[in-house]
């Protein structure tokens, strides 16, 4: 089983995808996930933590790290289950619900293991870890990996890049919002209304990356 897993990672998808691993495609996936199709600012996934945890730079970085961590695990788990259990039995339509329970239990498991073996990291991630269960960007990555017919290796790369893209958006947002705290803005725009406007402006700015992929 480990051997076959390695084969997927290095070589190809079992359902007859591209046979070899290309650096060019890897770079394309990374640039796409971080900038062009940024999960928050272009695909509008994971908006809840994007607005909820972007008040302070510290917590934004913490949340971003936790999301990268869980995204990779969720991709691994969901990809393996999809290609080994659902596809062989023609049950692809069970994808969404299966992925949801896999992600939910993975987060739980990760939380328990972290609490046991790395209390420092557990304390640092704090409330963000359980919050990730309901982060639709995680499910989004898992589902889009399947839609794009990525191999396991590409899927993992895509999930890391998506997590980095999420972190980037969150950190940028937190940086702007920290400055806005002290800025003299109209009373009615203070707080969340301004955050929405900033998010919109950032999304437009990220639209500028659209030509990057060619």
């Amino acid at each position, binding site marked *: 089983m480990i051997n076959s897993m390695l084969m997927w990672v290095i070589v190809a998808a079992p359902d007859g995808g591209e046979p070899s691993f290309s650096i060019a495609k890897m770079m394309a996936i990374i640039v796409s996930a971080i900038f062009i199709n940024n999960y928050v600012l272009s695909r509008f996934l994971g908006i809840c933590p994007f607005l909820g945890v972007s008040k302070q730079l510290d917590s934004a970085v913490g949340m971003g790290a936790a999301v990268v961590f869980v995204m990779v695990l969720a991709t691994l788990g969901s990809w393996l289950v999809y290609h080994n259990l659902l596809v062989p039995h023609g*049950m692809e339509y*069970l994808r969404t619900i299966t992925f949801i*329970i896999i992600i939910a239990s993975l987060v739980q*498991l990760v939380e328990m*293991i972290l609490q046991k073996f790395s209390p420092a990291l557990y304390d640092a991630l704090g409330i963000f870890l359980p919050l990730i269960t309901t982060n639709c960007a995680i499910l989004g990555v898992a589902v889009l990996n399947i839609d794009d017919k990525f191999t396991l290796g590409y899927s993992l790369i895509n999930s890391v890049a998506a997590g980095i893209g999420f972190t980037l958006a969150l950190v940028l947002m937190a940086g702007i919002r920290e400055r806005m705290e002290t800025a003299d803005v109209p009373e009615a725009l203070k707080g969340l209304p301004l955050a929405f406007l900033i998010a919109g402006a950032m999304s437009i700015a990220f639209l500028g990356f659209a030509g990057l992929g060619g």
Partner: protein
Amino acid sequence: MIILAAQMTLVLVAQQETSILSAITGPVIVMGSIGLLLGLGLAFAAKKFAVPKDPRVEAILEVLPSANCGGCGYPGCAAFAIAVVEGNTAVTGCTAASSAVNSEIAKIMGTVAEEKEKMVATILCNGGKSAVNAFNYNGPSGCVSISMVMGGQKACTYGCLGSGDCIDACPFDAMVTGDNGVPVIDAKKCVACGKCIEACPRDIIVLWPSSRKVVVACSSKDKGGIARKACSVACIGCRKCAKVCPVDAVEIDGFLAKINPDKCINCGLCASECPTGAIIDGIPVRPKAFIDTTCIGCTLCTRVCPTDAIEGSLKEKHTVIADKCIGCGQCVEKCPKKSIKMMGGVLSQQ
């Protein structure tokens, strides 16, 4: 492992040939087995990776007010609960907790909570509209902003600026702007968390024992004349209150009277004596002393009465002159036969 087990069950199902039934049972079994295995896995992991946690933390967290006000000095109620269990803070450390909650926490910890006087935030200024403006302020609102412009728009540089920073800071909605522009604190809602004290740029809010109803509502350290010109209800340091106080609870610090809450007996004499009205008496109707028939006429009460409200000669039953009695209760304490009782009265304005 999960995948292998699920596959095995599925192979068994597949052997029973296809029908509508199997079209339903297949997915049900797949989902069921995934759910079951993940559930069992989690249950196993919960046991295997269990971190021993003190159940008292949860128990304490349950009885705490959960306002996360930070009045205890810890970041939130959960951190406070952990600190209590670890013995880093007293069981009565939560400022927002009632004494019932405190004793409950003490019960969880297996100790007894010491009764603590309930404190209430009190603003030592009643200036508001009585305080003269030195100039017109048109800048951004907020006491901090106002105080940064030439020491605020009020002629008095000690008093309340009236922009309500403390009201905004109060997590319990215990403060509202009063009729004269100075915030009013609802003693029932106030839990003495100290957020308003931090927010006030003038430092004129203190935690005052709730049982002490007489307060010098002024913080001006200016000389009498200057203070009076800036505000009609300022303390001018005339010392009348200190002279009239039967228990020496009033101390004059420079040109400002201060009541020592440990000594004060709520008699309100100072408030009635104050020429500017700087001392606020929070008791609208005071109880009156009554002497019953067990009085032996020892005259101890007449000697202790600050207003000479008790009359009667030696060895005869004494009586109280109701008009003169201010309900301070000093005679009740002194009476050797416990013949004096306080009757009537309303203890607070609410």
